[in-house]
């Protein structure tokens, strides 16, 4: 459960977050929609305690990431817009590194690596070094890293970009399994089809403010527009925001 209330963040003269409030429940996949530059990255960084907020409250299972960032991070799987692979390490070594950083013991870690590898269908690249991996292979490894330590919360920044059809299906399958496990998943995305198919809840942010929160159907109903994409554009305000 992630609860965010009136969070503001200012960098010099730039107001990156001007008041973001939402709650993402366990056992649900929550989409984070917003044009580029809306403050999604700043919001995610604030949630893992990399940035300090100027105002407001954040509680992740009741813990404030500013007070105890390590406890919060142990319980979060964070997939950024960069994969962060190491070319000279094999997939297994990469996963072992991050498992150890998350305090996992060796036998458990070995078992878990095989588990996530089976879940994402990446047995073929487990012993290979990351140099020369395709985009799809890279994101699979990054995703495996995110899921490795069985976090209760997942913050995913565009997890499906660059994936082929089979991998997208595998990802969708994995996310559904996590939801069934009772995980709280927040997923920033630009693919509306994914939102309608997968997400139970949608948060729309624009220019650092929460514009709306609700299920895809609710958002359509509220705006009186049947198509989610058009509803999103109307909520954000201008078409300009999307291009920016």
């Amino acid at each position, binding site marked *: 459960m992630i609860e965010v209330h009136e969070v503001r963040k200012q960098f010099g003269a730039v107001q990156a977050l001007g008041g973001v409030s939402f709650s993402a429940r366990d056992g649900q996949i929550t989409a984070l929609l917003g044009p580029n530059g809306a403050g999604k990255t700043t919001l995610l*960084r604030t949630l893992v305690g990399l*940035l300090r907020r100027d105002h407001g409250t954040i509680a992740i299972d009741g813990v404030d990431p500013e007070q105890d960032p390590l406890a919060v991070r142990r319980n979060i799987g964070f997939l*950024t817009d*960069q*994969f*962060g692979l190491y070319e000279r390490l094999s997939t297994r070594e990469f996963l072992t590194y991050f498992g150890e950083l998350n305090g996992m013991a060796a036998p458990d870690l070995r078992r878990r690596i095989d588990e996530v590898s089976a879940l994402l269908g990446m047995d073929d690249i487990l012993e290979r070094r990351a140099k020369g991996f395709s985009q799809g292979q890279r994101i699979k490894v990054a995703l495996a890293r995110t899921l490795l330590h069985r976090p209760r919360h997942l913050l995913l920044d565009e997890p499906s970009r660059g994936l082929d059809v089979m991998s997208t299906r595998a990802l969708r399958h994995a996310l559904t399994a996590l939801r069934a496990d009772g995980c709280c998943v927040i997923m920033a995305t630009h693919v509306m089809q994914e939102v309608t198919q997968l997400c139970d809840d949608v948060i729309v942010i624009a220019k650092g403010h929460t514009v709306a929160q609700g299920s895809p159907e609710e958002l359509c109903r509220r705006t009186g527009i049947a198509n989610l994409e058009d509803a999103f554009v109307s909520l954000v305000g201008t078409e300009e925001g999307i291009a920016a």
Partner: protein
Amino acid sequence: MKPKFLVVYLKELRETLRDKRTLALLSLFTLMYPAMLGYMLNHQIKRATKPERDGVEIAVIGAGQAPTLVSQFKQRSITVKDPGALDEAGITALLQAHTYPAVLRLSDKFGENYAAMRPARIELWYDSADDNSKQRRDIDDVLDAYGSNVASARLLAHGVSPATLAPIQVQRFDTGTNASRSAVLIGGILGVLFLPAFICCMPTAVDSTAGERERRSMEVLMAQPIRPWELVIGKWLTAASLAIAGVTLELALAHAILSWLPLEEIGMSWSLGWADLALVCLVTIPLCLFAAGLQVALAMNAKSFKEAQSILSIVMLVPLLPGVVVSMMELKTAGWMYMVPMLSNQTLLREMAKGIDVGALPFAMTFACSALAALLAVGFASWRMKSERYVLSV
């Protein structure tokens, strides 16, 4: 459970050891310097000892016409060989073979002109590109002495005092000793001997900070349950390990070569035992830690691998500066020199090479000054990594 900094350390070390090209370059540098040093000193020793071992040989074409000259050469222990008649190309080939520093050719009419008291021509052939000016000077001296001897005898026959021909008398004194010349040399050698401490840690320090930032994996890493100081310490220790390995290897190799060479022949001394060397290596560990700490602290602020590399290549020259200044201003060894990292190591090794018993304090100071600087650098790097401005720029 392994401490977090150890997890980072082991991962960075594994990655570094897999970068074969960088490792090859580092070991080449580390091994090449002592090898070059050995070759250079050996060459110098050979040159310094050569004239005593075997006398100079000279080729004189038509030696039979000037028996007095030949005997004067013999008195100066210069052996005369007559290679027989040779043309210009033959003489050049003879000189290029480096057996003779010079070739004299007496013209066919030498005897005739000599007897008639006309100037008798002697051709002196030499190769100025050849490195044997000292031997050529000996030959010139013999020729001059021969000429003035003959002139004196002739003047005397005419009733004129030979002293008329020598209005002045020049006597040369060279105060430069081998020892003073080699003091400059050994200063230069020691200055560079500790450089691997700075060079060997550079690739890792840059790759694990600026490189990681450039590849955009730093943000992921910082979002893990690990404190910034643990991350910095892991990366710092990896870079320092390489520096320690490099500098220890180089010192050991240089020591083996310097103790094996007969340095006293050129007035140098290297009075260190292996136990002394082990002590020097021990107090050089903090220097490596400082070098790695400084480089991590600087490289982490660079946006790209290339930027970090250019910053560090400039910074790498800074530790050499105090040593250069001290040797240029010809300062006497003083206590404060043991408080400057790098300079303290150089001073310590120089004093020990001279065979001076420095006592325990310089060792302690050398160790402490670098250790303190290392802690400051790592403290700064950790503080920097924690700052929000750094998070924003990764």
